[in-house]
């Protein structure tokens, strides 16, 4: 087991910079998720750690060892691929035993290892099948087994759940998390699914356009997003981001929407001028009748029931807002509704840099 450290690592393909001078420190035994939209450079980071891509500049350490020039096979790293990359012409047993065979382990050692790993992952009955005879979930377990069997220093996961159907994905998520904690192996997990990152990781690295946006625990990511990008990317459905400015009216600070569709009092001591306001859908409260504090009015544009919850798309004179409310609220299309933001859950971001403004 080992830590993984990236120092000023960059990767360019031709003229395109895919990864831009990132620093990352994954602690020994930690479960680190790298979260970002497609094309953000997250998979490239993983592949550089694996040794499948050369770094353009910077240094990668596994433990204390600089691995820049070490080929993948000698890095003692295991990787689970998005499509599992099981060897289609080999049986499950051969797939799992291959990494050990290549390393010249004894037959007895290999048999023993396969037995324990396949029992652990409950794939003993699949050992003599070919990958194509397995379901997606089974293939995924075999891919895991092939990684685990070597007792590597580090696990790398490249979106390993994205080929599973939605239901299986949720259970596999829990399974993987449990597995990682039991084995205690340092793991780096790449995903574009914020729910995966939030539920599984010890810490999450959010990456966008080759740049690290924030490294934080899931809770911190949610409550204190470093910038507008993180705020919009983490959380589902995404946060409402509203342009406007802070104005001082008789000593009281207000946020005024840019086209003056509404204004609200703000508690924080923010500087005057243009800002972005972020409101999570669950913090946008809706009432069907006029109440105190529900000062804003909008029309119901789309209603999406989801069992216990519903999403409401609201139209406030052309400004689209999304709210998540209880299904108990009976509502019909085009109905006038009254809105209120939870004042203690408002996020403000710099209009110029997008950076979060947390002054309190």
């Amino acid at each position, binding site marked *: 087991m080992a830590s993984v450290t990236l120092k000023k690592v960059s990767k360019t393909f031709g003229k395109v910079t895919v990864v831009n001078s990132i620093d990352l420190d994954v602690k020994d035994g930690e479960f680190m998720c790298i979260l970002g939209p497609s094309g953000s450079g997250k998979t490239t980071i993983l592949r550089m750690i694996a040794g*499948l891509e050369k770094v353009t500049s910077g240094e990668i350490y596994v433990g204390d060892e600089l691995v820049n020039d070490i080929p*993948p*096979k000698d890095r003692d790293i295991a*990787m689970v*691929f998005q499509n599992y*990359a*099981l*060897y289609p012409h080999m049986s499950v047993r051969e797939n799992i035993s*291959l990494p050990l065979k290549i390393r010249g382990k004894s037959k007895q050692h290999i048999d023993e290892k396969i037995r324990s790993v396949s029992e652990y992952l409950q794939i003993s009955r699949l050992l003599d099948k*070919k990958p194509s005879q397995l379901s997606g979930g089974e293939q995924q377990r075999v891919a895991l087994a092939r990684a685990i069997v070597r007792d590597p220093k580090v696990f790398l996961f490249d979106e390993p759940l994205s080929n599973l159907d939605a239901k299986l994905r949720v259970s596999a998520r829990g399974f993987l998390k449990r597995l990682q904690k039991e084995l205690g192996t340092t793991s780096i997990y790449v995903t574009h699914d914020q729910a995966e990152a939030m539920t599984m990781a010890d810490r999450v690295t959010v990456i966008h356009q080759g740049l690290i946006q924030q490294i934080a625990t899931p809770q911190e990511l949610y409550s204190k997003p470093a910038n507008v990008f993180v705020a919009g990317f983490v959380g589902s459905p995404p946060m409402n981001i509203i342009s406007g400015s802070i104005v001082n009216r008789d000593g009281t600070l207000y946020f005024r929407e840019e086209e003056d569709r509404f204004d609200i009092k703000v508690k924080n001591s923010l500087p005057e001028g243009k800002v972005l306001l972020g409101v999570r859908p669950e913090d946008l409260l809706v009432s069907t009748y006029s109440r105190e504090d529900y000062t804003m009015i909008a029309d119901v544009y789309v209603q999406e029931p989801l069992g216990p919850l519903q999403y409401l798309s609201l139209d406030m004179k052309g400004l689209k807002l999304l709210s998540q409310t209880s299904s108990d609220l009976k509502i019909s299309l085009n109905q006038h509704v009254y809105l209120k933001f939870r004042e203690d859950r408002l996020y403000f971001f710099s209009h110029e840099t997008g950076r979060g403004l947390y002054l309190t």
Partner: protein
Amino acid sequence: MNIKASIFEKHADWFLVLPLIAYLSAFTLFPILENLYISVTTGTIISVFSLPFMDQTLINTGIFSLGTVSLEFLFGLILAILVDRVKRGSKFFSSIFIIPLLVSPVAVAVIWLLILDPQYGPLNYFLSFLGIKGPFWVGQQSTIMLSAIIASAWEETPLTFLIIYAGFKSIPSQIYEAASVDGLGGFSLLKNITFPMAKPSLAVAALLALMTSFRSFDLVYMFAINGPFLYVQTLPYLLYQVSFVSNFQQYGSAISLLIMLIALLPTFLLLRMMRIDERLGLKKEREGSPAFTQRLKSLFKARKGNLSSRHLASLMPDVGRNKKASKKSKSLLPDALTYALLSIAAILSIFPFYWTVVTSLKTYNELFPAGGGIVLFPTQIDLSNWVEALIELYGYLVTSLSVTAAVVLLTILIAVPAAYSISRFKTGGTKIVSWNIIVNSMPSVIFIIPLFYYTQAAHIYNTWWSLISTYLIFTLPISVWLLVGFIEDIPKQIDEAARIDGMGSFSIIWRMVFPLIKPGIIAVVILSVINCWHEFLFTLILGLTVFSGQVPVGARGVTVFISNFISATGINWATISAGAVAISLPLIILAIILQKYFIGGLTLGSTKG
């Protein structure tokens, strides 16, 4: 990890492709340069045009190429339309239609000499029913060219058919369903959907047909030695005549360059159509029109029960779509008529071969019926022709078998690593692949003079080595191109997983690539076998004697046996027929058993050596 291994691994891309490049340089690039050197230093590069009968030869070449292409394209297209229409039996008819392709051109010539025989041939016999007195065909100035064109078109139509048919098959059935909902049917369906969508295949088919007929030597040779050669002689035959009969090899070099120059134009057109850069993933594929080869891949993808291809298919959502739905409900022709036409076509395409088989088994009396006419179904069987043919065949057979086996082995050993390197490391970009395709498209006759010198200088003239070393020209380029396609289809993650699991390039090729491209290997083997087995020019020039027990001396292969028969013993029709059948039958059986690999290989590689 030792140091040697790490140096290899670091430059694995070039190490793996090195044998291929070395071979192609020595055996294709160098000969061309030597031709250039000879023809410039001796001045033949200019005086070549004043060779006697040069004008006539150029005209002949044009007539022969264009005539053959027109016939091939017409028949190939008709066959493809017919086979594409039937719901059942398309496989059966396809395997009958490909038979002519499996007969070596030399044997094809024999078969047609039989058919066209003015006195005892069935064609003139059938014509007499129509009240037409058939001409002397091969023996006559005015008809020898037509005879050669007919024979050549018979042999090459299957390739045109296969490529056009593959193009038709690659049209998704949903398109047909949409079209039939929109009210298209019959000719409007062909005109608006089938032809426009299969246009790339139609173009490639025409181009390949043109290139194949342009380079045709074997068949022209066989007709030329049996008739007024001046009226059938094309450029490749002139090259042979001038260089190896009249021994003016400096002129031969100049003719080689002329042939090369003419062949370059269609070659470059073909290169463009193949879209190598897209195939190698170096350029994004044009939307809506996947590369030609990509579409042909469906031939392999449709295979059932193959684990690897099913696994691959599950990773690639867009394959396996070509299920033939109940398309074309409003039909162009009633089904019965389609089957009737197909049956006639089937009879026409196997009758010449049937006639040869029958001839080989006939007794003298039925070969030459006393009262004239012909015997379609022999009443007595005489095996003595076969015994005679097989005894004579022995030495040629040993040479051909040994050479073929060695060439196939070397081809795999050189082509697989090279294809891996080209596919995975993009070694040389598109250049190496283009080089392969250019070599493959060049008439092999242009290399023969320098190779003739080489083999003598290296003291391997008239040994098996002379054939083994030169036959790779026919097998390597097509194999590399085919295998690159197959390796491209293995998900890159398989390699990457293997690398992380601890493998180097060699063990990845051996343990991963090899088992996963088995269909490709089989296709390569069968195409190589056919190319070696059918080859005539090289074994004619580089071989002097027949193998007589002293390995490896005697480089005359089975095709020379057939051609010798005609000149040496006069024409003993029954025995030569037996010989032609004997050397063709094994390949026909092999290719029909392995039909899907063979057809896939042909259409995918889409150039024949």
